[in-house]
């Protein structure tokens, strides 16, 4: 029976960690931080997500990986939302320019919140952005931000399981390391517990 002290497993974990780090480096070398979003769209998404779930004593949406989550899903399961995001983030930027004379990414937090409240109701002013389009965009990015913050970390959000920690519930147990793991015999379980 393999357990967490198994040296072979540790080697595997180490190798995986190196592989993950390497992937990160190669991504940033491409000169574009996101898979789907442009740099400008990424900056806008960062502003919006952190307004939806701002940092307090617990990380905000962006630090928890919301934009990573959204960007990743837009090339995957949420590819049908690609146009909604592209159009929506651009329109939101126009609304910011028209209402506050500044790009969305540079908008003051209180102004951004004010703007998003309007978009939520479909009452923002931006040329060619209808009420229903605004509401659809807002409810979509809100739902996706919530999914990233409270959902499984494997999808790129909920970094360090901050969403779970904030609510005071345990992290997802990894098979083989759980108190519930009944595949270990009682003897090996208690000997594992005695180790430092």
């Amino acid at each position: 029976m393999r357990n967490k002290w198994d040296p072979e497993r540790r080697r595997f974990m180490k190798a995986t960690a190196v592989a993950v780090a390497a992937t990160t480096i190669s991504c940033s070398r491409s000169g574009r931080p996101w898979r789907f979003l442009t740099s400008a769209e990424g900056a806008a998404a960062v502003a919006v997500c952190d307004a939806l779930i701002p940092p307090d004593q617990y990380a905000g949406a962006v630090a928890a990986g919301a934009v990573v989550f959204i960007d990743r899903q837009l090339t995957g399961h949420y590819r049908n939302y690609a146009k909604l995001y592209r159009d929506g983030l651009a329109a939101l930027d126009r609304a910011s320019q028209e209402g506050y004379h500044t790009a969305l990414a540079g908008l003051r937090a209180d102004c951004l919140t004010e703007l998003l409240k309007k978009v939520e109701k479909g009452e923002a002013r931006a040329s060619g952005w209808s009420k229903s389009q605004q509401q659809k965009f807002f409810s979509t990015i809100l739902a996706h931000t919530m999914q990233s913050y409270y959902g499984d970390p494997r999808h790129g959000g909920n970094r360090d399981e901050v969403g779970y920690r904030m609510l005071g519930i345990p992290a997802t147990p990894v098979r083989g390391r759980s108190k519930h793991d009944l595949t270990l015999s009682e003897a090996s379980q208690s000997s594992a517990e005695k180790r430092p």
Partner: protein
Amino acid sequence: MSRKRVNAVVIGAGAAGGVVAKELAEGGLSVVLLERGQWTTNYDCRKDDLRNQRTSVLGHPFGPDDERNPRVIDDTNGESAVVKPSEPGYQNNAACVGSGTVSYGAMAWRYMEQDFRMRSIYGAVPGSTLEDWPITYHDLEPYYEKAEREIGVSGEVTNDPFKAPRVNPLPMPPLAGNRECELLRAAAGRLGWHPFDVPMFRNSVPRQGRQQCMRCRWCVGHSCEVNAKNGTQNTVIPTALATGNCELRTGCHVRRILTDARGRAAAVEYYDDRDRLQEQPADLVVVSGAAIESARLLMLSAGKMYPAGIGNRYDWVGRNLQGHSYPRVAGLFKEVIYDDLGPGSGVAVCDFSHGNKALTGGAMITGDFLRSPYQFVEKTPRWAPRWGIEHKRFMREAYRFHASVGGPVQEMPTWDSRVQLDPKVKDYWGLPVARISGQKHPHVVEIAKFIVGKCEMWLKEAGAYKTWASIPNLAVSGGQHQAGTCRMGNDPKTSVVNRYCQVHEADNLFVIDGSVHPNNGGFNPALTIMAVAYYASANIVKTWKGTGFRS
């Protein structure tokens, strides 16, 4: 390509199909069991709260495949949309060996005696096709017991004074309840109600070579990591295969049922796992694809003798689609309710299932299965802040401090709530997809409002200082509880199959699954689907003469 003739082909390896395959194989018939999905194992429990059969915002692991199986859904405003299996409104049931029994919450309810006699007890409901079953609870009782024993049910229903009479107790004791369950049990007792332990397809003790439930929170929507949740995939299907009389073919998508010159089923035509068209001749055919796909297959099998589909001479195939609507109430408490112990939904009351003033039926009410944080976000009340710092504060003050109760309301079947073949949209194999249209009967909402009142009472008695309700709308229901589309009845003009689930027009063709329920009770239907499968199979085996099926 034509394959070697067998005695029976069973289409769909779910709650009903698994049981039928096993019963027929044990009865000495050679059986081919066709399943469009794949085998899953307990190692496929990914504990992913965004990608499972219950919360499928990032898809679902047990199918059907999102790209190949669209449906068309007409909403209550008359707008129609093409919908993928993991999207809302699709009315999905998992496509894998075991189907919904792999990932269900696993409640194992017997319907009450009244559920079989709704029309006699309550009279006609205007606008509804409400009818009695042609069989009674007592016809099914031995088969309910067989299902409880062979699939494996834990629980304790002795304290339910409203239950239908039963001969033997459940085979396993109940699991211990979590904090939410015990709080609700005590409160129901104080209200003078009759709380008891919900029967569940779940091992509370090691049984049949498998582990007992470890009470984790990844239950409903997921496969069980320790294989303690009982479905057909880990009970009757392995038994069927062990007889040597049953061959299971996965990844097989049935195209149509072929009939002979006399209109009897002769073979099943299907695309195998490499998309090759195969023909499987058989003496008898059993359709167990669940209410939507079973009805669709009968219609896809239209031919010279059956211009509108097999069994559809009087336009009953696909009609009366129903599932369950769930009125629910959640409440906030001063104390922490969450104790990280699953699966939840351990206690129920049947005080309001029948006999409610001016209402036709009612609902069993129970606690909810454990809600994941994202599920809770989706169900927060209108007055709760949806975003911003205030949202985070609300989540911290509410998530571990809330409890939720609700139950499946008796549906009044309607003629217009139905499955048809869509004239335009085709699936991956070029076959017309199911089109779902119509709406629920308004009386369902009236019952739901009554049940919401009882749920609020229950939570307040348990100590909730604030509650909020969700009341179902008129949109068609179906989902895992889908039923009704091939009604069982004595009159061929007002039903599709007879009391033995035999299609009136073709005596060697059977529909055995939730489709045959004339109404769907006020309970989760899985155990009833299995009991009907045992009952109908017993009749097939008894009538079988070994040289072709003759009734």
